[in-house]
């Protein structure tokens, strides 16, 4: 895996990525916070938000002691200011980070050996809105978690599939992480073979595709609310996330949901 800072790669310098704060883990990643001990709606100083940090260790082998100074100076200049940090593993994710701490370790006896290690710790302040990597989950009658990270009211894109045994009057249910039903989107119609519904919860519009031909399907809307995924409906940073599930009057409802989570 390679990282780029401000569009320039660190490939030539990375020796070890000690910690990337779980960015690749497909798990709920809401902000760090201490749970309220006094119960809901009682605000106390116990609530805190922690930074998201990225620690990278560089193994630098400059050709001379003078070059070591020049290399470190160049590195410091490259790391100045607020920088877009991107991993080529997930290029759709951009964190805006600031160098929080840097430690240079001169190896023992290296007064003549210019090799050194540099620990760089970057912090992503207010990382909301900068992750554009979309998540995808298959939907069925079994609720599926939709981690939204730090996102608040993230509009998902729901696509409901037709089937040879028609899916009649599908319903999209949104649950809080603990299983409490928050809202339902009620639709009226029948989805048969080669048909699917495209529900854009951002624009709150619905389209029907029949063998590739798109038509307006807002008339399918029978009631309820377009689901909005939110970190407010998730538990703490390690807890579960809001869930989506499908129902229908008859047939087996299936579909897929995509959304952009915060970070």
């Amino acid at each position: 895996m390679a990282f780029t800072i401000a569009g320039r790669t660190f490939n030539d310098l990375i020796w070890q990525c000690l910690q990337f704060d779980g960015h690749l883990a497909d798990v709920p990643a809401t902000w760090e916070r201490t749970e309220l001990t006094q119960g809901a709606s009682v605000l106390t100083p116990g609530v805190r938000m922690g930074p998201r940090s990225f620690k990278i260790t560089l193994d630098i082998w400059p050709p001379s002691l003078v070059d070591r100074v020049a290399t470190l100076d160049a590195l410091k200049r490259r790391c100045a200011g607020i920088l877009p940090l991107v991993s080529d593993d997930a290029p759709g994710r951009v964190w805006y980070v600031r160098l929080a701490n840097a430690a240079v370790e001169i190896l023992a006896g290296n007064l003549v050996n210019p090799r050194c290690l540099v620990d760089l710790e970057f912090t992503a302040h207010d990382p909301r809105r900068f992750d554009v990597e979309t998540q995808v989950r298959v939907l069925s009658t079994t609720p599926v978690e939709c981690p939204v990270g730090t996102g608040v009211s993230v509009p998902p894109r729901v696509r409901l599939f037709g089937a040879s045994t028609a899916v009649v009057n599908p319903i999209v249910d949104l649950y809080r992480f603990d299983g409490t039903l928050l809202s339902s989107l009620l639709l009226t119609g029948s989805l048969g073979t080669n048909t699917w519904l495209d529900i854009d919860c951002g624009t709150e519009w619905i389209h029907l595709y029949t063998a590739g031909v798109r038509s307006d399907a807002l008339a399918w809307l029978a009631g309820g609310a377009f689901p909005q995924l939110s970190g407010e409906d998730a538990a703490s940073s390690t807890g579960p996330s809001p869930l989506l599930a499908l129902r229908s009057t008859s047939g087996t409802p299936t579909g897929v949901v995509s959304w952009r989570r915060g970070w």
Partner: protein
Amino acid sequence: MSAFLRPTAPALRDPTPRELSSCLYHWEAALASIDTVAGVAGVFARAGTLASITDGLGTTFTAPHSMPAFGMVDADGDSIREALALWMGPTDFLHHNVAPPVQALSFYLDFIETGARTTANATLFAICNDAVSGGRFWIDTSGTYYRANYNNGVAATAVSTLTVGQPTAGQRVRLFGYLLATGQLRISQRIGAAAQTDGNETGPLALLPWGAGAKVRINSRGDTENPAQGRYRRAKLVSGLPAFDVLEAIR
């Protein structure tokens, strides 16, 4: 959700990022859209379903008739499906009604191999009109190695072919290279984190206008000609000849 955070209208929402692109052409699956980053509408077609698409949890689904199949892939072999990709089979076609100016440019295609390489002439990316005529550029396969092609509509096709590196199903492949103002062409490849390998640089050839109605296409050469397959992540055309890390990172 707190009642404080659930107003009636307008809804409090994170704004959907709308990026501007500094590329001549830039499509990115991470945005979960068939439109380009700059907002040019994508035209997608598949007369049938596409099975075995994987979501972020590894659950598979079958994309219905004509639905773009965005699924999640493990791009670096660590068993975590961290990246979005547009899964395309041999009956999937995507094009954008744009064509860059005829000029020195670099191309970049990032995808997960699913077996297209062994089908001779299967085309992953192209600037080409419906009739496959006139000036055109495309990336396809000899059946053994991937290659880049340029035909100015008059002379014989210039072909730059890789001679090392045969990606197998599931591997991440980045094909990139350049078309110079002199008409010279070269393709390069990176498979996973492996070192770059280069194809031959072709000889000079006059750069002539693209064929009338040229479009940028993913997964085919013409409207139906030479479809390939793959899980596509990014496609870019960039002015000039930036270094690889810049070509990779530029948005």
